[in-house]
């Protein structure tokens, strides 16, 4: 059975609020969401802001980049440089934990997060 899930789109901020090739944090439904403007690839990503390693609200301040032949987009936590896939949320530094990822869309200069 395929369960149908409804996605609610929340306005997060305007496009200019998120620095190019970097991230910033928005508060949506009382959750801290890190939003990344991957200008280089023309892509947007969103994840939880909390780094599961030391429970710090810091991923939005991390550096983004890519790794491997597949060019997997990733973010590195500024605290201890644990890296996570922006697509799957999987920890790429070999730890067990992972992070939540969210859908993002951009319309009329506004950034929306799907939850």
């Amino acid at each position, binding site marked *: 059975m395929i369960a149908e899930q409804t996605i609610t789109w929340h306005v997060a901020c305007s496009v200019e609020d998120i620095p190019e090739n970097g991230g910033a944090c928005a508060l949506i439904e009382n959750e801290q969401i890190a939003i990344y403007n991957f200008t280089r690839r023309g892509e947007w990503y969103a994840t939880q802001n909390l780094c599961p390693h030391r429970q710090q609200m810091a991923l939005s301040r991390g*550096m983004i*980049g890519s790794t491997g032949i597949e060019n997997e987009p990733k973010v590195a936590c500024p605290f201890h440089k644990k890296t996570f896939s922006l697509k799957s949320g999987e920890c790429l530094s070999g730890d067990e*934990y992972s992070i939540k990822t969210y859908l993002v869309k951009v319309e009329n200069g506004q950034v929306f997060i799907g939850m």
Partner: protein
Amino acid sequence: MKKKIVVVGNGMVGYKFCEKLISKDVSKSFDLVVFGEESRPAYDRVHLSEYFAGKTAEDLTMAPSSWYKENGITLYLSDPVVDINREEKTVRSHHGIVENYDYLVLATGSAAFVPPIPGVEKDGVFVYRTIEDLDLMQSHAKKAKKGAVIGGGLLGLEAAKALLDLGLEETHVIEFAPRLMPRQIDEAGSKTLQSKLEALGLQIHLSKNTQEIIGNGVIESMKFADGSVLEVDMLVISAGIKPRDEVAKIAGLEVGTRGGIIVNDKLQTSDPNIFAIGECALAHQMIYGLVAPGYEMAEVVATSIVGGEKEFKPFDMSTKLKLIGIDVASFGDAFIQEPNAQTIVFENTAKGIYKRINISNDGKCLLGGVLVGDAEQYNMLLQNTKNKVLLPADPEDLMLGARGGAEQASSGVMALPDEALICSCEAVTKGSICHEIIENKVTTLDGIKKCTKAGTGCGGCVPMVKDLINETMKSQGVFVRNILCEHFDYTRQELFDLVKIKGYKTYDDVLDHLGKGDGCEVCKPAVASIIASLWNEMILEKNATVQDSNDRFLANIQKNGTYSVVPRIPGGEITPEKLIVIGQVAQKYNLYTKITGGQRIDLFGAHVSDLPDIWEELVNAGFESGHAYGKSLRTVKSCVGSTWCRFGVQDAVSFAIEVEERYRGLRSPHKLKSAVSGCTRECAEAQSKDFGIIATEKGWNLYVCGNGGVKPRHAELLATDIDSETCLKYIDRFLMFYIKTAEPLTRTAPWLDKMEGGINYLKSVIIDDALGMNAQFEQEMQFLVEAYKCEWKEVVTNPELRKRFTHFVNAPKMKDPYAKFEPMREQIKAAEWK
């Protein structure tokens, strides 16, 4: 239908069994159910004493609950198995859960053995086994001053370390035998260990038989058989272990007369469907009380359940451990002596080192030995013993290490046979590590850890694994070139020159023309640093998001996500007016204040959104950024010098200010520290700095490449009795040479260490202009000095840049509710992280 395995016990060995089974059971033909008595999933009991040294329960956890879930394992915690029905093949738990099984694996471990001394039930008497035990000890220790441990063996000394870490004023170790660790080391080794432990503040009582624990409800003193009495308010009993075989006994399985579930070579109990592994199992008439044989048992049972053939052979009980910082190791046959063997003993009582090796009478091979105080050679000795490697003409070389330099030691790794066990915790051989390096091109330590698990247990073999990687690569003729990362096929020095020639000023330009992919957390800050070193432009204008968090927010990120602020105080000189401003700012924004080691003031706990306001007030009062966040010049310390000090021969403060203002904001491969001392007494500690200046009657002596930090190193003298102008000229040249040629994140000290020709070559470059680059170096430095602007002043006056300093883009005024503080000594500190 799937078969079901029930594991009784969720300790290290029980967990390891699950891990091994999951990796072997590829077709997922088994269901796995685990019962654990404790409330948390299996944790690392070997490193339990680190709990008091700052590690958390989570740090010690082998795998989180989610791991069990992800692998389809049903985990019942706080619910020990109380009954086994062998007829119906079911187990029943304390909470009444009944599970049937096809195979049952008993991994119930052991409990602390508590001798029947009258009074053991009193408050303040503990055993040392679980995290709960530690929590109880910790809360009792708050009101305790004198503590004792019964037991001078391995576990007892671990417990004594715990008492030391808990900060007790006195810690006593009571041992029944006439010496410490009688099972692992010989008498002379015990003596060395004892004197080292006594030097650390432990009071050791040997040949003491505890007769009674006295006290009114709570322990007050201990009475011994010889009539003496010791006053203590806390006691830990660590006199040995007893296997947890209760449930096996109830089920009618055969147990040993002194405890332990009897198993055969396949680790089957008297019921062939029931296995026992770890410290509850009695194999070859003995209890294996170490983790490595426990893991091997887990391997044996996991293998045979999935249909393989494996037996548990008598296990080598060689061990190496660190007891309260002291290396203790024994390997092979540690006690064999004449006439059955020849022994070579080395003893250095001044340093507290004792080493003994036992060699065969024909002088051909190593049989075993003991190491106390220095066990660096343990792995080599153990491998030589196990593999019966032919001894060199002077076998003491093996024990005393490579006196002729590092080369000898590393050729040692390569001399081992492929079967040599490098990691005994995970049973990884040299051959399998080399296979990964050569065939699968795994050339990093992390990579080897991931694919072979070597080095993931006690970690003792990590240096050997590293050696093995380097040596194997060398032997393969691999030229190890330090390229930046997967995105740039250049060394930092090559990239530096290319960026300069092409005149690139943004990271994207550099990546587009010289790199591939989208960059990462390694190349981004490295390239950002090169660009800043070359052009000295405001780092947040074009390259904000390629900076590390500290540079991106021009402040140092701290434990709870807030930042610290360090205004520049050149030479450590500050007016009372400016001091008052710092105090007022700290008060207004509720910041924790501390004087730093570099004669400045650090203000902690600033919310990211407060940073521009804080700096606006500081800038208005005449402060500049201190660049404490950057890989750049930090501070130039100074002593008070000849202006006040009766010994001073030069004005150290004035010169320190001049030096600091010349190089402030200079971006470099790593941070730069400096100091100026006004006379030879060297109160500013200039010889521990990247560049340090010491006054002489005639001028200054210039020292370079010193370091405090992880690997302290005295600076080397570059030039003597030079005047101020020459001194600055030399520093210009030195810094530019360093900035151009060092690897990323390499301080000046390791940079010099790697330089061929060392300080003499450096002198020839800087003083004799051997490269013919000095005019250019000076010109480039002058350009950077003139381009300097205070970064914070620019942010404060630029509304666009100011906007970036928010936690929530959609609620710019709101602070991060997660950034929590706790009070401490009338100030605040960051809430402890998990």
